[in-house]
């Protein structure tokens, strides 16, 4: 075996600094370089123990890899040894294993994402290249958004898993130089009344606790999200988290080494919690299917959250950003997430074409851990800075003195752990030995797999069922269903008010809205959506309807959809059926983005600026329903114009936008009342959808809308009921179902079809102008009823009452539905 000759370090190598105790923050008083020449340099001759791969049979190599706790394939290991021209060290294999994992390298998904998703647009400041995507609000302000999943960890340890999901996602936004201003949490749990009820409720309760305990303590309001229960999530919950931040366009900080960093030997500074072994293997863990017997061992892969330390770190980071602005230099800044230290350092270096030399002895840590652990452990609450040498003392002072990290969390601090080089090598030293010495580009470029796709053999049919004779009970069942019921039980845990920016809170409308900058009139709306039941029938339409619905959510408050993120949750991509589902969903997403244009820019898609792919959401019992979860950021020019969904006044008129079609496949009605899935999944009529969204935005902008709610789960009937049931629940309503569709449509289908649309409340006298706005967008306005002063929800057809519910009884059922399901 040929061993590559090792290049001695240059005289001003940071590795020589280990002669100084950087871990305690003790800096040599003056002239570091001079200091080093006195002590001469260290030449590392010894490489850490190598893992034998070269010359072994596949079986032997496999045994070696598994024996070392590595998940990578023999082929992958051989390709690494070939590039290195020697056997790799254990730490090197762990670094590659993390960097080439599905989570870090998107090895199965990248080609598909590139093929279909639109990621550019006139408002895109930064597409999906770094930790967050960024879009412009106006000439000055931008929104940064990140969308992540933390599904596997949350299934095993719900509280810590969900909390670190939020923790990681807000870091992604903060490291762009942005102030994190809101989060959203689309969640999917198993059937709370099914065979796994105990476990499902344990997971649901733990996840919700983890989210509120982290988010509230951090001090970022949770303003949107949704919860769906279904047995396909019995063994694999989905915890997706969206975070948004606000940043000025000229103050964005990049997650890559600045220009000149390599030539000038910039510092590499690690900030935050002392590195420990927690979360070791979290990345590889997120990329493998869960088996029940694995749970005990998998627990070691979960990270430990600390929102309190994060709160202090965010404030210290603000000081760092301020310092950088004052001095006028560029730095690189990145959070440590999946793949830990190795991922953050190597990606920052390779993005700028540089290398780096790092010394694990300089790292502050919680104990004596082997190199491979320190390289890839996913210890939470850490950031990495690449900065010019002259800023070193100022930066260390911000973290270690001003914000007193060592006294805020035992062992936390900022430490210089290495320096940038221009030779393209990723070099890590530990205890005087060479732990890693690889090409940084090779490490970070990852690998690609061309997965096979094949449509699954499934057939769906429409149920054959009589129309119900009595609709009051049907309505009550729908309103109390865990998937329709009020989310109040959960959002009363969420600090939706912190920061004082919140204009519209969860439960008040289809999207949350914040006014994040004092003195500015613009509001930023956030919503998230995906319907797994549609996904089961058609992943393509699940993707397309998710985009359409989330845009409707945004439009419902009067905001204009500005960008999207996608979090794609699927089964094992090595199975052709799962990979087909993934590709179909991506095609559906992309088609909807491209055909519902960015408002104001004909033919420009609404861009997808950030996203995440989560595969292997499956257990031996099966995979989750295809779940392309989509989040949307919307902008409203004046947040005072925004509307909510609660009925505003007796005598107001109710209008329907969006014709009813026979589209009840996957609907709440079919599943809850008939116990069937059906086949006719709602589709997106792209042109109609675009017109409806534009019309609603325009009507709200012109002040013609008193309240607005989009039609989705539960159809028209649930939509109007929710408008009456939402606080203050002061008014009843009467609608004529006959006006919503033609005579040939069955009443149950008019009520519960989940074809897209909106219900709008308007003050008497504004109909004409409202109709004009609709006509301008090529739509007909259907008046279907009015708001009443009586506390009843009444739906009629052909002069007969089909539904007549007491508002207070209905509200009780609707409010308690989720409390019961999570008890």
């Amino acid at each position, binding site marked *: 075996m040929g061993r590559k000759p090792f290049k001695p370090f240059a005289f001003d190598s940071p590795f020589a600094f280990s002669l100084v105790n950087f871990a305690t923050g003790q800096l040599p008083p003056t002239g570091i370089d001079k200091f080093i020449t006195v002590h001469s340099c260290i030449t590392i001759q010894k490489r850490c123990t190598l893992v034998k791969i070269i010359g072994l049979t596949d079986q032997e190599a496999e045994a070696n890899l598994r024996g070392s706790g590595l998940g990578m394939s023999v082929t992958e290991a051989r390709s690494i040894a070939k590039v290195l021209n020697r056997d790799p060290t254990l730490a090197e294999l762990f670094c590659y294993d993390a960097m080439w994992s599905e989570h870090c390298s998107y090895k199965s998904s990248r080609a598909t994402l590139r093929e279909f998703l639109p990621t550019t647009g006139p408002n895109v400041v930064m597409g999906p290249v770094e930790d967050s995507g960024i879009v412009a609000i106006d000439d000055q302000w931008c929104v940064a958004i990140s969308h992540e999943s933390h599904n596997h960890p949350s299934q095993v340890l719900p509280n810590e898993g969900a909390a670190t999901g939020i923790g990681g996602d807000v870091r992604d936004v903060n490291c762009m130089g942005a102030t994190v201003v809101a989060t959203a949490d689309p969640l999917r749990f198993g059937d709370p009344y099914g065979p796994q009820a105990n476990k499902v409720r344990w997971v649901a309760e733990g996840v919700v606790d983890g989210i509120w305990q982290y988010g509230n303590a951090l001090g970022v309001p949770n303003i949107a999200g949704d919860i769906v229960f279904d047995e396909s999530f019995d063994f694999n919950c989905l915890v997706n988290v969206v975070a948004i931040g606000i940043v000025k366009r000229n103050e964005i900080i990049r997650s890559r080494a600045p220009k000149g960093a390599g030539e000038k030997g910039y510092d590499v500074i690690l900030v935050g919690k002392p590195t420990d072994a927690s979360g070791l293997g979290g990345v590889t863990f997120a990329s493998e299917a869960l088996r029940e017997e694995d749970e005990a061992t998998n627990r*070691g892969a979960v990270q430990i959250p600390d929102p309190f330390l994060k709160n202090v770190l965010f404030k210290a980071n603000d000081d760092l950003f301020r310092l950088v602005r004052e001095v006028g230099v560029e730095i690189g800044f990145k959070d440590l997430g999946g793949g830990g230290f190795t991922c953050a350092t190597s990606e920052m270096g390779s993005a700028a074409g540089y290398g780096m030399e790092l010394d694990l002895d300089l790292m502050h840590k919680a104990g004596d851990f082997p190199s491979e652990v320190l390289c890839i452990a996913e210890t939470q609450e850490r950031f990495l800075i690449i900065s010019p040498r002259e800023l070193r003392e100022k930066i260390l002072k911000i973290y270690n003195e001003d914000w007193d990290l060592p006294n805020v969390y035992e062992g936390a601090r900022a430490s210089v752990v290495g320096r940038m080089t221009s030779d393209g090598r990723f070099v890590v030293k530990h205890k005087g030995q060479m732990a890693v010495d690889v090409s940084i580009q090779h490490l970070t470029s990852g690998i690609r797999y061309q997965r096979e796709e094949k449509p699954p053999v499934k057939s769906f049919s429409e149920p054959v069922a009589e129309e119900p004779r009595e609709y009051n009970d049907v309505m009550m069942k729908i309103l109390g269903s865990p998937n329709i019921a009020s989310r109040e039980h959960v959002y009363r845990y969420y600090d939706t008010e912190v920061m004082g920016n919140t204009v519209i809170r969860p439960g008040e409308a289809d999207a949350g809205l914040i006014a994040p900058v004092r003195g500015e009139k613009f509001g930023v709306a956030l919503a998230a959506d995906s319907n797994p039941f549609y996904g089961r029938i058609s992943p393509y339409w699940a993707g397309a309807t998710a985009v359409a619905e989330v845009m409707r959510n945004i439009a419902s408050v009067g905001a204009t959809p500005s960008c999207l993120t996608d979090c794609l949750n699927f089964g094992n991509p090595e199975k052709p059926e799962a990979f087909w589902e993934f590709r179909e969903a991506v095609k559906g997403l992309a088609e909807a983005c491209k055909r519902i244009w960015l408002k104001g820019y004909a033919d420009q898609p609404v861009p997808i600026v950030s996203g995440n792919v989560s595969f292997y959401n499956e257990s031996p019992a099966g995979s989750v329903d295809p779940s392309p979860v989509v989040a949307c950021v919307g902008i409203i020019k004046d947040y005072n114009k925004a509307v909510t969904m609660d009925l505003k006044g007796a005598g107001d008129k109710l209008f329907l936008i969006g014709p009813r079609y026979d589209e009840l496949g996957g609907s709440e009605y079919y599943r809850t009342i008939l116990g069937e899935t059906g086949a006719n999944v709602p589709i997106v009529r792209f042109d109609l959808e675009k017109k409806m969204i534009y019309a609603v935005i325009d009507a709200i902008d012109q002040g013609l809308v008193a309240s607005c709610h989009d039609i989705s789960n539960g159809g028209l009937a649930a939509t109007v009921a929710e408008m009456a049931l939402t606080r203050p629940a002061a008014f009843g309503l009467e609608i004529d179902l006959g006006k919503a569709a033609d005579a040939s449509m069955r009443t149950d289908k008019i009520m519960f079809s989940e074809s897209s649309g909106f219900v709008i409340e308007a003050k008497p006298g504004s109909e004409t102008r409202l109709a004009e706005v609709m006509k301008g967008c090529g739509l007909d306005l259907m008046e279907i009823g009015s708001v009443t002063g009586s506390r009843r929800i009444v739906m009629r057809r052909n002069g007969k009452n089909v539904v007549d519910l007491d508002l207070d009884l209905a509200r009780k059922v609707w409010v308690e539905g989720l409390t019961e399901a999570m008890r």
Partner: protein
Amino acid sequence: MSTINLRVWLIIPDAEAATVKNTLIRRMGCGDILADVKKERLFSIDVDSGDPEVLAKAFAKELVNENKESHKVLIDTLSFEGAYVPVKVSLHIEDGEAISTRDRLRNRLGFKNVMSVKKATIWKLYLKGDDKERAAKEIAEGLLINPHKDSYEILSLAEDASLSR
């Protein structure tokens, strides 16, 4: 009827104990009497039937987070071993979390033989000097409790020895 005592401690760094130690030494001048602070959670679960050893295992599965905690089961006794003074802090007002834990064990998990659950925090004070009792009292009253909701008990080592027999 048996009492299952579940002592649970963190195997990862205990940020709360570190903050308590830091506060006692840096802010409250206890450096002369205090060397270290560790912490445990204590569940005392009364059951009216069933094999307590078997039940203890099942309860531990629910109440102990193996990713970050370790535990020890003691049936009808409570003992501590080590060079520290254990100070037990619990609520004297109604303990909502303990009731929730009882309800979860009884209702969600079906352990109908669970009669009551009590929760406490055991602060393990590694004390210096001769009058350890007084030092423990000072620390408990100075920081570990708010007397309007918490009470504390210094579990003396001699007493534990008798309990453990």
